[in-house]
């Protein structure tokens, strides 16, 4: 049982680590600010989820797990919010996203 948990958490942690790395690389590689934000959100959401889940498995049923859960919840609430706030700031300052083609109005009503 213990071994199973260990393996599971090991897998989660490693995957999380890989995720973080990929996100980090993405942040470096991506061509413009908005695309970089996507890479960052890779680490913020997936990376965080995996890592914390991994640690939670290790902690077992304890207060620490609850705390980790709270941490995860807060992270998942705050990081998109922060990302949004950042995007808004960039837009506010007049920074245009680089897009392949013109802005697509995908909404049906808007198209009409």
């Amino acid at each position, binding site marked *: 049982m213990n071994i199973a948990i260990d393996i599971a958490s090991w897998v989660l942690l490693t995957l999380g680590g890989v995720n973080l790395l990929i996100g980090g690389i993405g942040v470096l590689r991506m061509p413009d600010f908005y695309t970089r934000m996507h890479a960052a959100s890779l680490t913020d959401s997936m990376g965080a989820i995996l890592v914390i889940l991994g640690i939670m498995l290790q902690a077992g049923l304890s207060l620490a797990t609850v705390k980790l859960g709270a941490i995860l919840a*807060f992270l998942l*609430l*705050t990081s*998109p*919010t922060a990302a*949004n*706030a950042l995007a*808004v700031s960039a837009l506010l300052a007049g920074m245009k996203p680089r897009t392949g083609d013109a802005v697509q109005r995908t909404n049906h009503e808007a198209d009409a």
Partner: protein
Amino acid sequence: MSTITLLFSIFLLTLLMITTMAIVRTRNLFVAVMLMGIASLLIAASFFLLDAADVALTEAAVGAGISTVLFLGALALTSERERSPSSLPLLSLGIVAIVALIVIYATFDQPPLGSPSAPVQAHLTPWYIESTRELIDIPNVVTAVLASFRGYDTLGEVIVVFTAGVGVLFLLGTGASASAAGAPLSEDNAGLRHYLIPRILGRLLIPFILLLGFYVQFHGEYSPGGGFQAGAIVAASIILYSLLEGEQRALLVIPQGVLLAMMVGGVLLYGAVGVAGLVLGGNFLDYSVLDSDPVKGQQWGILLIEIGIGITVAGVLISIFHAFASRGAA
């Protein structure tokens, strides 16, 4: 410290050095402030690696929240870019290099990192740890030393914070007076109310931040934390509120008078505990006499003065924030 954590910490410190160099190099102050945020995180992580959880917590509460907000507040009212180039960089570099060499020269005789025979570890530390167990009986030795063994220093620290508050209020005026009393709440210049996501999320999180602040306050004796960190966290939550809803609304929640009362009340609470020790026949800040059981007395004393610290710090930090923010509004 095992070698591997040592390597971690070395890695972090290297990042820290790069960050600081970048901070000094950049001509854009906004960028510098952002990099300061990173530096603060790195420092906090290093503190944590070096077993200083309390300090890391403080750095977290201050560096990540308050400090950035204050710097940005100042930047908003001044300018973002440094205008003139550095003067005499060669001379300055020369001086700096010499002092750096002197400091490095000093390091070669220092006791190596973590050596148990170093005087710091051998002289006072065992006594503190033993006495905390015996005389105060709380788990967090840092809190015991901070609040009791060196409670006088901490009183001084509170006074420093209070002084800064008084100073900023003196220099900038109170937020209330600047935003012309009686003026209606202007809806269009009220923080981030028009940004839906931040606003709603903020609304969701503020109670938890507040609670966390109180939690840190009252668990200072058991885990990292204490009055100062708590005060900073509570202040951060109020600052968050005023960023979201506008400074004037925040002033409605905690009016200027209350803030002032907090600044004053905390210091006075601390002082009163000290004087109580004196009146009850002990020395100043001697908590043992507060209760028939000296250990209990110590615990009461620590609890009370930590509350005093928390109140003052929160009051001061919020006041400072308002003072900055109201300058922008004026």
